[in-house]
């Protein structure tokens, strides 16, 4: 029986000089859920992502992923253990074709070219990129570039997908289609998703649970319906009621 808790963030702090970008953060990601990580600008969401994915070492605290302590591992090692992230600003290979973008993600997974090819095709199909495989990623419209970023992460069929503002700049139709894809990724492939996103409507719609940060600290946690009524969260976003 695999543990119910996939990622455990335990008392994690990250300081930059005197600035505590994240301090004493505790939360868990449960297997198979879509967890939203929200908070006003500067709340420490991106820092949290960077610590989880190994780009920053935590100043204090520990990270446990799939029953293993991954504190201090580098990004490649963490990725190979099944935790993949995307970046807020275009995580794609601009000069390369969509096919090669996805292919690069599969290289460390398979040795055989045939297996890599099959995985690329399946992934492109899922992200509705099949018609664009030969196009240079940097020339695609913004919405499709976002899908390429997600395709790169999803191509690895990782246990945990950490998506950093994947919906930014998408129109309503594209958002709806992206959310449907996220659900399929979770339901059909059993991937757990950790989502940082500013589009509140989308977050409320798709997330099973939400963790709220403010000023680098844990503020609240709960179901979307609880969070939207939470006094502390409302005042963090809108300022205190007079």
């Amino acid at each position, binding site marked *: 029986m695999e543990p119910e808790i996939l990622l455990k963030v335990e008392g994690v702090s990250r300081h930059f000089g005197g600035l505590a970008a994240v301090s004493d953060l505790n939360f868990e990601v449960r297997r198979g859920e879509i967890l939203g990580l929200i908070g006003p600008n500067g709340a420490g969401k991106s820092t949290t992502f960077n610590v989880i994915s190994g780009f920053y070492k935590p100043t204090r605290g520990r990270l446990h992923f799939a029953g293993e302590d991954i504190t201090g591992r580098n990004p490649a090692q963490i990725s190979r253990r099944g935790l993949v992230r995307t970046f807020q600003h275009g*995580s794609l290979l601009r000069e390369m074709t969509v096919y*090669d973008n996805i292919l690069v993600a599969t290289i460390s997974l398979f040795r055989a070219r045939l297996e890599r090819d099959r995985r690329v095709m399946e992934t492109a199909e899922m992200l509705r990129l099949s018609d664009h495989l*030969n196009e240079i990623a940097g020339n695609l419209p913004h919405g499709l570039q976002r899908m390429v970023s997600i395709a790169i992460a999803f191509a690895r069929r990782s246990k945990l997908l950490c998506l950093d503002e994947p919906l930014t700049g998408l129109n309503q139709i594209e958002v709806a289609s992206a959310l449907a894809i996220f659900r399929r990724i979770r339901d059909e492939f059993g991937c757990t998703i950790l989502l940082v996103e500013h589009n509140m409507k989308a977050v409320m719609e798709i997330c099973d649970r939400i963790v709220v940060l403010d000023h680098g600290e844990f503020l609240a946690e709960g179901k979307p319906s609880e969070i939207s009524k939470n006094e502390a969260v409302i005042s963090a976003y809108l300022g205190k009621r007079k």
Partner: protein
Amino acid sequence: MVSRSQAVVAAAGVCALAGSFFSKGDFASSLIIWVAVNVLMTASFRFVLLIGELNFAMAGFVGIGAYAAGMATTMYKLPFALSLLLGAAAAGLISLVVGFVTLRAKGPYFLLISFAFTEVLRLIYTRMDVIGGNSGMIGIFPPAYLARFYPTLVVFITIVFLFVLYRLERSAFGKILVAIRNNDELVQTVGIDVHMTKVWCLGIASFVTGVCGALLAHANNVISPGDFSFLVAVYTLAYLKVGGESHILGAVLGAIVLTLLAQYALGFGAYEHIFYGAAIVIGVLVLPDGLYGLLQRMLPGLRRPASPGN
């Protein structure tokens, strides 16, 4: 399946081999060797450019290859093939260590470090009396039975290594190198050790560079520290800019054309370097993708249709 462009390239290779075989006279032979070695140096310089780094340390590794092979031939009287291998191995191995330490830096920082490496190495040669100090090392000859075929051998080795570099670039490894140039953080998130990949890239390129140095040493018979200053890398950059960076054939074209043209620049005396500076500027301004880009526009057949899994 052999495409028409591949057939043309193969034919050109055969012609080069035949031409070098039947070439008469010292100057023609020397010129063929310089062209071939410059072609290979440019290709190896371009190989490191795949990860986005301008590798000025290349000039230093040419020197290591030349001195190692020169020592093997003159001091230890080793067979020619072994000298060649030792030159290449010395450059390759040292570059792995150098790369491991320096490739955490990138862009202008790596450029400066690699530049400094080349110059420091040159100064070290001048202080080492074992290898001739300032006046250099003399008497590096290929074996007598090879002398007649030496230009042909150099062209052959160049073609072999060009092919190896080309295959590597087209492989999954090569895709990773280009991906690193595009976005190295992203490549880390798909489970690839970016740092070690860069180190291996430099190692492979430097092995080839070491071969160049060894071949050059045996062609010129004399080497001295001044032959391996950072200017070698500047010339190579000029070859690449004029030839075009997007394809390995660009490196080949640029090196051939500029090396031949430069024979006229020799007459400029001290102004010779202006020739290379002008070549870079004109190349960048007039030929955005170099001679290869120009050729591509003139012969649409060269344009490779991108196909998945290719």
